[in-house]
């Protein structure tokens, strides 16, 4: 069959297809369609699955389905010692690993009544703020990419790479840091790490203003976000939305200010808020928080005292290896802690910290043994996702992507 015959044949088939009138739709606008978005969808930030009911392009209803990344961390925590669980906190919100590390050890320290030295606490603040900047950069970049501005993700990841290199120097790992210890941190900040952080802060500010210029002169970007997914203040509180999303709706609530942990009460910083509560406000909110984190970091570097980075409390806190190898008492307690755990008193505590995504809380029930009887992770992404069904109702399909991006869920945390 030559080429011309083939084209004619195909034309016949097309015509026959067009003549097929068996399927009749009486009124196209009367029909609703149910479609499935995710779990493997690039714009859902991981494995979030959404089931949408559409009327044309308008979303009539939306049901989020979670659990595709459920690894059972709460169950695993009940079967390992408090120290063993630290690496698992990296895998909760994997964009801001240090914040999770800090939050978890603070919760255990509150339960066990251990206090870390002042220098260790300042180091924790520094790494947590660096981690917050990294997480917000990822959030901004992927959010912009979701609505079509692909350049942004290159620029934000370029800055984030520098933070990862700093973590590599501080903690020995770029991504899964597991840096904090119960009673302090794993290693001290050396001069080169401090110099690197200072250099990074100098470079970050012009980069941020460049990013602002890029995005805010982009009319498509503004047009796709302004007035989309408005979350009123009352609904944000009622739905339990936390973190930047809550503040973008006009609630001035930040745990670093409301219930200061570490030494945030000694630091001067502003809590940025917006009143609009739409996707654009949530975008600005993260940008402003990065600028505040830069301020916090500068003050921390100035105020950081000299001293120990891990508490001298051999019965509860793992001592440094040089002491374990040279002193009998430390050796015995090291053996006891590794084998039987730190045995906090019977009781239960809840401690929450301000994570990049919102309030990360740990509710720990201890029965006096080395393993937690129960460890509940209150994850901010889970709370924020609960607002999706309200925000997306009545929006367009393309807005759903923008709304998910603006809420910035991380499924590793939402699914635990």
């Amino acid at each position, binding site marked *: 069959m030559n080429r011309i015959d083939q084209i004619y044949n195909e034309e016949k088939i097309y015509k026959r297809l067009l003549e097929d009138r068996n399927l009749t739709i009486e009124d196209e606008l009367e029909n609703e369609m149910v479609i499935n978005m995710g779990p493997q969808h690039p714009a859902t930030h991981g494995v979030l699955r959404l089931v949408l009911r559409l009327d044309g392009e308008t979303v009539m209803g939306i049901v989020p389905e*979670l659990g595709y990344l*459920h690894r059972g961390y709460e169950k695993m925590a009940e079967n390992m010692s408090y120290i063993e669980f630290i690496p698992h906190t990296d895998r909760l919100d994997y964009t801001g690993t240090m914040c999770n590390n800090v939050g978890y050890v603070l919760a255990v320290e509150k339960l066990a009544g251990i206090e870390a030295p002042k220098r260790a606490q300042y180091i924790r603040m520094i790494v947590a703020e660096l981690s917050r900047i990294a997480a917000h950069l990822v959030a901004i970049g992927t959010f912009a990419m979701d609505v079509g501005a692909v350049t942004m993700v290159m620029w934000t990841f370029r800055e984030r790479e520098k933070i990862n290199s700093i973590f590599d120097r501080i903690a020995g790992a770029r991504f899964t840091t597991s840096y904090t210890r119960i009673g302090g941190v794993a290693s001290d900040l050396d001069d080169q790490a401090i110099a690197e952080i200072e250099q990074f802060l100098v470079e970050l500010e012009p980069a941020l203003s460049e990013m602002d210029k890029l995005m805010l002169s982009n009319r498509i970007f503004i047009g796709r976000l302004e007035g989309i997914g408005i979350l009123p203040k009352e609904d944000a*509180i*009622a739905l*339990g939305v936390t973190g930047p999303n809550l503040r973008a709706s006009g609630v001035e609530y930040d745990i670093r200010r409301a219930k200061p942990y570490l030494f945030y009460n000694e630091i001067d910083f502003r809590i940025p808020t917006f009143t609009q509560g739409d996707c654009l406000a949530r975008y600005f909110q993260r940008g402003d928080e990065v600028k505040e984190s830069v301020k916090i970091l500068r003050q921390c570097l100035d105020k950081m005292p000299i001293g120990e980075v891990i508490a001298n409390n051999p019965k509860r806190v793992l001592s440094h290896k040089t002491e374990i190898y040279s002193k009998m008492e430390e050796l015995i307690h090291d053996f006891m802690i590794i084998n039987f755990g730190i045995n906090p008193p019977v009781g239960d*505590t809840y401690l929450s910290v301000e994570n990049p995504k919102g309030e990360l809380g740990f*509710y720990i029930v201890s029965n006096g043994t080395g393993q937690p009887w129960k460890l509940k992770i*209150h994850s901010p992404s889970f709370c924020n996702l609960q607002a999706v069904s309200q925000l997306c109702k009545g929006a367009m399909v393309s807005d759903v992507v923008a709304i998910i991006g603006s809420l910035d869920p991380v499924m590793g945390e939402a*699914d*635990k």
Partner: protein
Amino acid sequence: MNLKELITDKVIEKFGTALEEVSDFRDDICLTVSSDQIVAIGKFLKDDSDLQFITCKDITAIDWGTRKKRFTAVYHIYSFKLNCTLRIKANIDADPPAIETVTSVWRSADWYERETFDMYGIKFTNHPDLRRMYMPEGFEHHPLRKDFPVIGIPGSLPLPHQAE
């Protein structure tokens, strides 16, 4: 502690013996209340103009294993006015475990109760949409119960190579 007295006095004045125990281990204020009064107490704590616990942060449960009242429901609520996180515990004596839902008081309780139902099998009566949160529909067990092994129960989840 002032805040603790304020909250306890108000609750005792209104509910009397429904408040079973008050503790403040590590400065966390915790009220243990009777499980059949949970909605009324929640509503009171939310609506009272001096307290205003308007947001529910978290709902979970504790499985005590061998105790007679095996499950305890745990609520964490927050008041912007007092800047205080309050923990409410309710020992569940129903068997199979069930407690009234608080979704009528706090909207955010919806997903938290679904998660607790999924993990512990506690039925929240009158919940608008009590489905499993994480585990697949049709899964029979409740993973965070103490009698569920860490390695899981072989055959309880259909794996891809088993489905034919």
